[in-house]
């Protein structure tokens, strides 16, 4: 059993988290335990303010762990150095609620940023990979558009391509389908699920979107910073 726990890409133990300082200090996460298995699609649900995004960013190495333990791809995040965090983040793919595309870069250049961080491959290969990723998401004719000339859904698909282009081991997604119509939202989640089957990519997703719940392997429900349902 201990061996199995070590190989889980994400293993959260007795995680607590607080926001604010002094009198304004407020506990947001209460004693959360969660083990995510490789290649699975886990959905975090719950009302707003329940701590879904906080847990996602703690697991995703975007927020410093204050108390408890998060094992991410075999590395303890509590007390991890900046260099360890940087190295880990390169193995992850993040899809944010807001697309967070760089306004000065074209769609293809934004996706390229997801590859350049690894520094591997020659520029021509990287460019080809970026174009391929955008084509898979139906953006062949938008490669050289700046984000300001793309629709909300198109921007979100560029952000998805940017997160997936480097074949991450874990994909964290925060409301990825909010800006997408039903079909393309489902297409994105099916892609993630397919990546899980083929390459063992693990996905953790925060969503309110009932349309995609049926695709989940596991649905974890949070309320007031605690896990109240795990099915």
């Amino acid at each position, binding site marked *: 059993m201990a061996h199995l726990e070590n190989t889980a890409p994400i293993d959260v133990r007795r995680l607590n988290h607080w926001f604010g300082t002094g009198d304004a200090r407020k506990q947001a996460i209460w004693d959360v335990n969660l083990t995510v298995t490789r290649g699975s699609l886990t959905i975090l649900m719950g009302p707003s303010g329940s701590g879904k995004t906080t847990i996602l960013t703690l697991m995703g190495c*975007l927020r410093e762990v204050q108390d408890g333990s998060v094992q991410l791809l075999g590395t303890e995040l509590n007390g991890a150095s900046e260099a360890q965090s*940087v190295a880990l983040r390169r193995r992850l793919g993040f899809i*944010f609620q807001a697309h967070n595309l*760089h*306004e*000065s870069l074209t769609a293809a250049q934004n996706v*390229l*940023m997801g590859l350049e*961080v690894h520094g591997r491959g020659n*520029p021509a290969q990287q460019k080809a990979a970026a174009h391929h990723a955008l084509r898979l998401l139906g953006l062949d004719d938008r490669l050289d558009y700046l984000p300001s000339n793309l629709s909300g859904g198109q921007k979100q698909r560029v952000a998805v391509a940017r997160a997936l282009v480097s074949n991450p081991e874990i994909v964290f997604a925060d409301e990825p389908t909010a800006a997408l119509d039903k079909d393309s939202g489902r297409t994105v989640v099916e892609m993630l699920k397919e990546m899980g089957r083929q390459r063992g990519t693990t996905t953790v997703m925060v969503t309110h979107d009932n349309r995609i719940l049926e695709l989940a392997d596991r649905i974890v429900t949070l309320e007031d910073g605690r896990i109240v349902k795990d099915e």
Partner: protein
Amino acid sequence: MTPLLTYLFGRLPIGWLQLSHNRTRLLAAIAGVGFANLLVFVQLGIMGALNASTTAAYALFNADILVSSADANTLTDGSNVARQRLFQALGIPGVDDGTPLFIANLEWQRTDGTSSTLQTFGLGADATHFLMPEIGADFGHLVLEDTVLIDRSTRGLAGDALEGVTPNTPFVFEARDRTLSAVGTLDVGGGFSADGKLFASDQTFLRLFGTRSSGAPNHILLKVEDGIDAAVVVDRLQAVLPADSVKINTLSDAAAADLSYQTTERPTGIIFGFGVLIGVLVGIVIVYQILSTDVAEHLKEYATFKAMGYSQGFFLGIVFEEAIILAVLGFIPGLLASIGLYAGLAAATGLPLEMGADRAIAVLLGTLSACSISGAIATRRLAGADPADLF
């Protein structure tokens, strides 16, 4: 531009793309850096003009050693020197020749109501070889009573007023109740304390300034014999002449000491030096404002890059890229505007404002480092922050 920079950096030139994305802001930033450059250039120019006008007076003379009163810091302050020091000096081995040097300011009131202050130099009438060749050649004519050489660049005088002046067609004017004939001209220009220069023989000088005595010139100029080191002769003179009444320096040492005195002890020098400092500080603040605003405006995008696994070095790279682009693009208009302003100021004041390559390069390097340091400081708020707190 983008493909070239991509090739150079081995990555997308985010800094350039970011800057060129918003043309209006880029132009404002370039204008800001250019203005900071202009500010520093103007202060340096005025400081440089002060220095140049100080040393220019020494360059008029072709002498090796300057003997001055012990309390003199410049050519125009301090007590007079006893003429007997000249005769004493001529007896020292290695001293070839000498001349007294009289200096005073002459107010030249013209009939049209304008006036100029002429810094007047009186030397022995046979001392032609103690002057720079352009002046020395005409100085020989000054053996005649009340003849002078006058400065073509005298401030307040119409540009062509002194054209065609020769010994046969002199320019006649009146000053201090005497009628003077300018039989030749020189082109030096004024400084901070006078509008132009005037050269006369010591006899003419003493007639103009009746209160001055032929036994008490301001300075004594000496030439050493060929092949003898002036510094050695200075030592010999110091051994003989009393240190409590005269000081003896080579002419170049005297010029350097004057320059240092003007810049560190005189109010004008200190004020202009302070102006350079303020100009540099204001320039740094402007540049810092531009770059820190730029970082703040892209914080969300940088946070995304940070979440993707880019390290602090990458963000420093972007900001340095921007810093260098802004420094270079801002420097060009700043330099051009400064050259124009120098020309305008020089025309208006007659002061020697010139843009030297050394000054331009120093300001460019200063701008590059100010931009880079500002950029490094501006990215510090990224370094400690969790990406999740920056969205």
